């Protein structure tokens, strides 16, 4: 999941939880506030009454009677004062029922006892509970609406800001990672951001890729230098031998031995060339921009080595359509790949054998090219080794320096071609090339 999606989810969920908690606790909170407010109100009323009593004496209210009561028209509040014989000190606020003019009503009542001129008095101030809670509902509604509005505003603000904040990260990913290809030759400018973490990430990525690129360039230079260092002495030797062979003064025996030297040197040359070729392929020194028809490529190979099949009475079964085209390839490398495979199919075939070059072309199935021979086959224990450099199948008895198939493997890897082999010793071998969708669209 993308970071932005995760953050969006988290922010939304946490805000929803907040709203839920608040809405659930709102009735309780409002009630608490209303009750506190009422208590305060009752105390204030008490204070006012006590002030009047302090100023004017209890008589102001009692007027020589035992008790005094006063209530508002709708019985929402009342004040009662009476003489009491109870000696207990009482000063409480509680919810209780009172009967006022034959109506039983719930009141929040402040009960207070006090002594005035030697007499004990009991003061009660009450307020109906229904008036206390009358504002609860509208209050709750307003609070909920305001809260939800605020939440929505902050949510939008959070998301917009998060998006803005994460934008450099997206740019770093797309410019530095997604759209770049090994060996990162192009210089991409740093992403503009004020977030130091992103700056650090971007900078690290640039440094890392520059390092990879440098190493790659060094490797490339090394290959070129190694090529020069190895090929120059071989060159000198080759030319000396060539001039010597031509020297008419040489006797035939000498000339024959020089020829053998030349052959050996040629072998060395081929090995060095093959190794350098593999190294260059692995070092990405070939462009892959050409498009060629499979059939044309196979025919070009046949043009080069077809005569070898005739020599051994090997027949070719070409089961290819005309229209399959390979894209994004290096023509010379793919030619070399097919050349090596077909050359092997000839070299390790039997007299009167068959070579079958066929294709698998189906919708929704990667394109496959098979090269099959009726040759000596490869034993099971040799199968995993055949693509290793310098590993020669043990019992072929034929020459080969074990680099042909290594080159095949390198070229296949370079073109994202999957390579598989099936073989039955003494009967047949089958090499299957499975192309990526980028190379062949089915």
């Amino acid at each position, binding site marked *: 999941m993308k970071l932005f999606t995760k953050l969006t989810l988290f922010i939304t969920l946490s805000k929803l939880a907040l709203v839920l908690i608040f809405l659930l606790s709102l009735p309780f909170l409002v009630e608490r506030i209303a009750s506190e407010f009422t208590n305060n109100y009752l105390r204030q009323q008490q204070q006012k009454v006590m002030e009047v009593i302090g100023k004017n004496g209890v008589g102001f209210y009692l007027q020589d009677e035992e008790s005094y009561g006063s209530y508002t028209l709708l019985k929402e509040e009342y004040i009662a004062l009476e003489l009491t014989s109870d000696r207990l000190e009482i000063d409480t606020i509680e919810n209780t029922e009172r009967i006022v003019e034959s109506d039983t009503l719930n009141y929040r009542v402040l009960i207070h006892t006090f002594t005035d001129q030697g007499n004990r008095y009991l003061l009660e101030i009450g307020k109906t509970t229904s008036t206390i809670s009358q504002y609860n509902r509208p209050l709750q509604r307003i609070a909920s609406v305001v809260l939800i509005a605020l939440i929505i505003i902050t949510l939008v603000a959070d998301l917009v800001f998060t998006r803005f904040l994460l934008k450099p990260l997206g740019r770093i990913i797309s410019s530095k990672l997604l759209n770049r290809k090994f060996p990162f030759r192009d210089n991409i400018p740093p992403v503009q951001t004020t977030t130091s973490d992103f700056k650090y990430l971007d900078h690290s990525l640039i440094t890392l890729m520059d390092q990879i690129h440098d190493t790659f360039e060094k490797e490339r230079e090394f290959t070129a230098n190694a090529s020069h260092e190895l090929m120059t002495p071989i*060159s000198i030797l080759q030319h000396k031998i*060539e001039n010597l062979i031509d020297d008419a003064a040489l006797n035939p025996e000498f000339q024959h031995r020089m020829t053998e030297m030349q*052959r050996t040197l040629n072998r060395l040359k081929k090995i060095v060339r093959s190794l350098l070729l593999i190294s260059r392929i692995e070092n990405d020194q070939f462009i892959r921009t050409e498009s060629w028809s499979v059939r044309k490529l196979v025919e070009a190979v046949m043009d080069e080595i077809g005569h070898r099949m005739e020599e051994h009475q090997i027949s070719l079964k070409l089961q290819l359509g005309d229209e399959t085209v390979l894209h994004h390839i290096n023509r010379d490398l793919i030619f070399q790949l097919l050349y090596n495979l077909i050359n092997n199919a000839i070299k390790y075939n039997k007299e009167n054998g068959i070579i079958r070059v066929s294709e698998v072309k189906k919708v929704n199935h990667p394109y496959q090219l098979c090269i099959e021979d009726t040759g000596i086959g490869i034993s099971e224990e040799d199968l995993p080794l055949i693509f290793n450099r310098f590993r020669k199948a043990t019992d072929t008895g034929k020459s080969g320096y074990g680099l042909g198939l290594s080159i095949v493997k390198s070229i296949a890897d370079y073109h994202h071609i999957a390579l598989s082999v099936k073989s039955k010793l003494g009967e047949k071998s089958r090499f299957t090339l499975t192309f990526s969708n980028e190379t062949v669209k089915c």
Partner: protein
Amino acid sequence: MKVLLVEDEKMLAYEVNAFLKKAFYICDLAHTGKKALEMLDINVYDFILLDLGLPDIDGLALLTQAKKLNPDAAYIILTARGNIEDRIKGLDLGADDYLAKPFSLPELQSRMQAIGRRKFNIRNESIALGDFAIDLQNRTVQHGTSLIELTRKQFDLLSYMLLHKNRVLTRTQLSEHIWGSYSDDDCDSNYIDVHIKNIRKKLNAYASVCWLETIRGVGYKISKQL
């Protein structure tokens, strides 16, 4: 034909020089880029064989300068670095051919001949070989009025040997010419024998091919009186 060989490896230059002299080229040597430019300033050459890995001047830069001094010469790049980019750049800069070291000396000569034919518009009449007439331009072999069919490879072999007449060519040299860098190991030398056998068979039907000699243990040679 006058050739300037620009090559810093003295031993290599010596061998190429010896070979070209034998093939009747007049060859000057330059071991540095500076020396090469000096010589190009005084002399006019038909061929300039240029090693790219010189100690003092970058080979491709030298090629550009040399082309100004000697625009009509044929340029062949010789290099052991084997960079694909070098090859493309060299040809872009106007080199006529490119040979990766190590190359075979007869191969160098045949490339020079091919460029010479193209560049200096030399049209040789068909060459007489025994009772046969060989036309290199049209790639045909004739006996009297009858045309003899040779495969592409067979004709390549025959014309390569004809170019190097009176000179033994080994199977290695021949297979390298025919298959280039694709030629592999010892196997190919056998195929050379097969090709020669087939050429002989085809031509023998018309007349003797005693001029095509087998040199035991070495290779083949076309002997021809000049």
